């Protein structure tokens, strides 16, 4: 599936209204922002720079490009973690605004850039801060970008994951998986042998990540509720949010029913028992 097809294309021509009024914000060689956009952009910029995570995640950059080297998204899109870090470090309200329109959504949050970074930056982290702000401010572009991902969001909100390692294209991870065998040897053995050394309880995660217990799912959703994630999502997509609430409500009822049945059965066998499940 090509994600790039879903990314909104930038409108390069000006509307009559925009052309009539003098440019509020110069996006050199790019689209000019309206005054409303400019206000939001500057608010976002101020919040972004004031976020305590900014100082923690963005340390400095030697522009070596090793982050981009390992980046799966850079393979497909006009996206580079190095550019994102540069914008986070040196960019102004305009460049930040521009990057937040679509580029930040190309990142797959695999954190390979962090692993590669010789300066110790948290690049994937700072991108997620940008994403957070774009959702909090309900950017129109964010709405459009996220619209086709209702299924992923649903999984993420109800199960907690939406991708597993066996879904990743092996061509671009030459040292991974069965494709790494043959000419590419790690030390004296092929990577297939190395993979057999991975503890089975780790490999097990590939399967078990889809088998989430009802209780875990409910706890996860409770966290989303308590931390305000659900409210963020509601601002962006109220319909999807209502649907999620319905799904979880249903599960909660099922869970409570099962719990009561379990208690009754236990009581029947052993007499009254202390409640240990909520």
């Amino acid at each position: 599936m090509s994600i790039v097809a879903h990314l909104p294309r930038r409108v390069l021509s000006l509307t009559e209204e925009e052309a009539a009024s003098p440019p509020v914000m110069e996006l050199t060689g790019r689209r000019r922002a309206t005054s409303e956009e400019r206000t939001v952009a500057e608010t976002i910029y101020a919040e972004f720079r004031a976020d305590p995570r900014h100082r923690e995640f963005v340390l400095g950059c030697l522009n070596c490009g090793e982050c981009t080297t390992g980046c799966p998204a850079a393979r497909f899109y006009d996206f580079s973690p190095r550019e994102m870090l540069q914008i986070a470090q040196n960019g102004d309200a305009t460049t930040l605004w521009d990057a937040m329109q679509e580029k930040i959504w190309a990142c797959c949050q695999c954190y390979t850039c962090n692993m590669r970074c010789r300066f110790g930056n948290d690049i994937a982290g700072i991108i997620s801060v940008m994403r957070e702000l774009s959702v909090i401010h309900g950017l129109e572009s964010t709405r459009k970008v996220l619209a086709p991902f209702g299924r992923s969001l649903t999984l993420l909100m109800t199960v907690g994951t939406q991708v597993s390692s066996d879904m990743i294209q092996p061509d671009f991870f030459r040292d991974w998986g069965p494709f790494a065998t043959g000419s590419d040897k790690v030390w004296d053995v092929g990577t297939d042998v190395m993979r057999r050394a991975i503890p089975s309880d780790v490999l097990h995660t590939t399967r078990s990540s889809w088998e989430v217990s009802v209780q875990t799912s409910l706890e996860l959703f409770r966290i989303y509720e308590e931390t305000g994630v659900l409210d963020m999502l509601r601002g962006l997509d109220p319909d999807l949010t209502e649907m999620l609430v319905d799904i979880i409500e249903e599960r909660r009822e099922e869970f409570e029913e099962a719990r009561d049945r379990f208690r009754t059965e236990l009581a029947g066998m052993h007499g009254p028992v202390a409640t240990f499940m909520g």
Partner: protein
Amino acid sequence: MNPILVLGGGPAGLSAAAELAALGAEALLVEREAYLGGNPKRWHYSLLAPDLRPAEEILGPLLGRVEGSPKVERRLSTTLTKSERLEKGFRVTLKTADTVETREVSAVVLATGFDHFDSRRKFEYGYGRYPDVIDFKELEGMIHDDKVVRPSDGRAPKRIAWILCVGSRDIQVGNPWCCRLGCVVSIKQAVEIRQKHPEIDAWVYYMDIRTYGLWEDLYWKSMQEYGVKFIRGRIGQVTLAEGGAQLLATGEDTILSRPTEVPFDMIVLASGMEPGTGTKEAAGLFGLPVGPEGFLTPRLSDMNPVDSGSPGVYFAGAATGPKAIPDAVTEGMGAALRAFQYARE
């Protein structure tokens, strides 16, 4: 006056010993290895920057001054295992494979030098895994013997890449400092190879080129006269290319902002400098502080880079940080002079 101990027989130590002899003092030159000349000798350095003169031409006269002087007592394959401060100078214990000896010295020059970074620690470059990924100190020997061939099949390479800052400027391996020499030595190697074998394509992957001072000339010439190619961006991983005969270097061309993937016949890693084993040991033996990087720290690195701050102990060369041979030689002279002054007082 007791002799002055010079610990380490590389360029800095040789320079100090030779200068002490010239001052009329006796020098006790102790070297761990069985030969004098330090890393340049050990790895058969070829031409030395900035003048592109053979290493022998520079080390030769220094060695001559030391070996030809009755004032310099040379102790090879010997290590220092103990030191005890006396009212003036030190009592030190020298150990060889089968002897242990105690000597009194009036002052100490620590010229304990550096070790090259072990490139295997940057595992993504495949050094030690792919035979055609070599360290630039190994290429020095190849150029010196005019045998630049792929270790895997003995064939001449058509295209070589240099990766700069391997084990330098990298907190992942705990070495945030610049090695100062990786740039100039790599460029010099590319020039040497292009001089002898213009059919070999030379690419240098860099973050910044630090051919500081007058060395900049070599950088310019390498492009203008020898056609060496410079790509800004570092290789993030090396794998085997299709078929397994070539290496595939993957990185980002950060000037053009696009991913790059180029097959090479040979990849050369410009490994950095780390505090030498002897430097770490000497710090312990003489109770000297080391910086966060592990190098010895002069008390006033700007005012007097050869003074340790501990009476009678002086520094020379790469023991205090990455250094080029001319700087090491100069510091050897400075340390010899300061040690001589102290010993005579």
